[in-house]
């Protein structure tokens, strides 16, 4: 137990140590986080009027970011499956970065849900009267928190074992890794069902939402990891081989293809039949009654997604410059289409046919940026701690080892 506290203490100390670039980056992130805290305090005082949301469009940027980030958490599963299921050892040394990303991203998701609540002070009511299994939101609470705990356990265990200089025992983490794979699929499915289950919103009430959600998540998540790994290898002593990046490239490539195919299926169903239920889709892609705030966004997303797909299909994208370009395009494109492009149009027009547009306010944007900065801050700290511990540069102090030896002797005799 004492050693565990020493571990936490060393982690805390490590997170404050770094060169000037590290300190500068952390200071900037902290400042942006504090700006977000400031905007959120305003929201606490005056209510959600500080946002652009209305009774007509009652979910906005917060839920859009939440939805997208649930997708990013898939990155972990996409690294784990090749390593643990297919024994692809290229990715073995970088799996932990995916799992750490999942932790940071799920915490961001929970924050985005919290800031969306009108009465966050009543959050505990959720535990006192949990409308399970009727409400999909309660399923999502279980799925997200469960995934967070699984990844915390896996990462925490591996890092702590490295800290103690012991070989991690497979019994304590491999079963959890496999549960986490299934769980990763469940967090997307459940989050998609949150929207799919609403009969009064034809834009969401479609069976293709969950599969598309998975496909786009499996593209955006690993794309982000490709970029992250390059930053890790540039800024730290951790070595990441190009093979790992190229394995991930193949995953992004296939996922992006499936995503675009499903998009085509969706567009055909919406527009060829031309039934009365396509108003939201028409609003999203072409605008309704002269109003189309989302039109430029969604076409940007489609162009970005298509470009990313084309680049990834070219053999030239084995070069890192083009690969990075494709990844950035995929991440931004999917952020638009799985965020604002999925959430907002379902509210336009309203079930009574009224067209009210949504535009996030500066307050809302500041809160969103604050949460993103906080997530990056968390991720940076976790990577900062993990790399020296895993490479054995930071270890438990010797006297603990001796104590443990003594204890081992005592139990043996």
């Amino acid at each position, binding site marked *: 137990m004492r050693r565990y506290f020493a571990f936490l203490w060393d982690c805390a100390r490590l997170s404050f140590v770094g060169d000037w670039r590290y300190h500068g980056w952390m200071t900037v992130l902290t400042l942006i986080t504090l*700006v977000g805290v400031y905007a959120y305090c*305003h929201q606490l005082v005056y*209510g959600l*009027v500080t946002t652009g949301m209305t009774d007509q469009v009652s979910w906005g940027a917060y839920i859009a970011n939440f939805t997208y980030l649930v997708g990013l958490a898939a990155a972990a599963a996409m690294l784990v499956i090749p390593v643990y299921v297919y024994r692809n050892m290229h990715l073995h040394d970088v799996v932990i970065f995916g799992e750490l990303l999942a932790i940071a991203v799920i915490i961001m998701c929970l924050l985005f*849900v919290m800031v969306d609540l009108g009465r966050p002070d009543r959050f505990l009511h959720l535990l006192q009267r949990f409308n399970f299994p009727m*409400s999909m939101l309660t399923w999502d609470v279980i799925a997200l928190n469960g995934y967070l705990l699984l990844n915390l356990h896996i990462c925490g265990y591996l890092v702590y074992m490295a800290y103690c200089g012991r070989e991690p025992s497979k019994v304590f983490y491999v079963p959890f890794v496999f549960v986490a794979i299934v769980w990763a699929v469940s967090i997307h499915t459940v989050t998609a069902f949150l929207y799919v289950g609403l*009969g009064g919103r034809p834009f969401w009430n479609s069976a293709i939402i969950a599969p598309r959600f998975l496909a786009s998540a499996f593209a955006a998540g690993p794309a982000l990891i490709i970029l992250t790994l390059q930053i890790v290898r540039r800024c730290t002593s951790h070595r990441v081989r190009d093979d790992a990046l190229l394995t991930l490239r193949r995953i992004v490539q296939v996922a992006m293809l499936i995503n675009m195919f499903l998009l085509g299926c969706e567009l055909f169903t919406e527009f060829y039949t031309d039934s009365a239920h396509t108003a939201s889709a028409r609003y999203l892609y072409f605008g309704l009654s002269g109003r189309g705030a989302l039109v430029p966004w969604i076409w940007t997303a489609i162009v970005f997604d298509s470009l990313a797909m084309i680049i990834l299909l070219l053999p030239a994208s084995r070069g890192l410059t083009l690969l990075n370009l494709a990844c950035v395009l995929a991440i931004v494109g999917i952020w638009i289409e799985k965020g604002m492009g999925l959430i907002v149009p379902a509210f336009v027009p309203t079930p*009574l046919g009224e067209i009210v547009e949504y535009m996030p306010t500066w307050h809302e944007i500041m809160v969103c940026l604050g949460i993103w900065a906080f997530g990056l801050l968390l991720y940076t700290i976790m990577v900062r701690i993990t790399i020296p511990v895993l490479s054995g540069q*930071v270890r438990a102090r010797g006297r603990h080892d001796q104590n443990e030896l003594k204890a081992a002797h005592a139990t043996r005799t």
Partner: protein
Amino acid sequence: MSAADNTPNNPTHGAPAGAAPEPSRRGFLRMGVNAVAGAAALAAALSPLRDLDPDDAPSLEEFFQKHYKEMSAEEKQAALARIAEQVRRRFKLPADRAVNVQDPPPMDGVEFVYALNVSRCIGCRKCVHACAKENNTSRSPEIQYIRVLQMQKGSIDVETSEHHYDPIKIPDHQAYYLPVQCHQCAKPPCVKVCPTEATWQEPDGITVIDYDWCIGCRYCEAACPYWARRFNFGKPQIPADELNLDMAYLSNRPRSKGVMEKCTFCLHRTRRGRMPACVEVCPTGSRKFGNVLDPDSEVAYILRHKRVFVFKEEVGTLPRFFYYFDERGSRYHEPIEVFEPGEST
């Protein structure tokens, strides 16, 4: 000073590599300055909280209050007294104005339904404003439970309807009117999705909200196919002299910011044998309300004999709100002036 730089000096299990060097006086000072700057930045970020209205923060009683269905009779009485006191304080009511917060239970053998005659409705929106007054909804930002749609002739598609019609005279004979409010569905999607069971269906068919339990996630608002739910995005503003002091826990007591609200068929009136405010105010008699289980009630007669339909039947929520039209054609109304100036929207 990074971990990598430090390790060559401590190759064995020594002091943890990467830890800060022995604090010199200068290092200590710098740490102090950093800590002070950090604390100041945090204080600045939290500074808007100074403007928090102490009335908005939940009191201890409110914070620990149980869910409506779990409260004992005494606890309920205490909650009603607390709410009355809170209303008096919040609206600075003089001592001679009695605040009456009750919790009328559903009556046995009663299931309320609503019937609206589309041949008669002239779209005057008197119901909209009477409802807001009766139910103490916020006037700024304005919250209305009833939305009257001006429908195009030849279409039942709400997407071609006009929500913000503002003529000098009504009705417009090129249109018909479709007022929409909570349909008190028998299979309410809003109840199904609520994560905290803060909204439920009462035995008399009314879907209610415990405003002290709602966490404000707005999932119910997304789920409602009739756009019947409203959210208090800001603190509801109601002039104290317009406050309706005859209140019930589950209906028209003033709400806080950050919670949902909706039409409750005026249960504080209807559970005591009165008509909802919208029925009482309707100048054309288009609105009918009553107990469907009583075969002699007006609504039972309408459901048996009139040409009745429900709106958006395809969403399958089984509404208790019916529309009907007269057999002998619409009553023709000469267009009339839109009521008192200022009352029109």
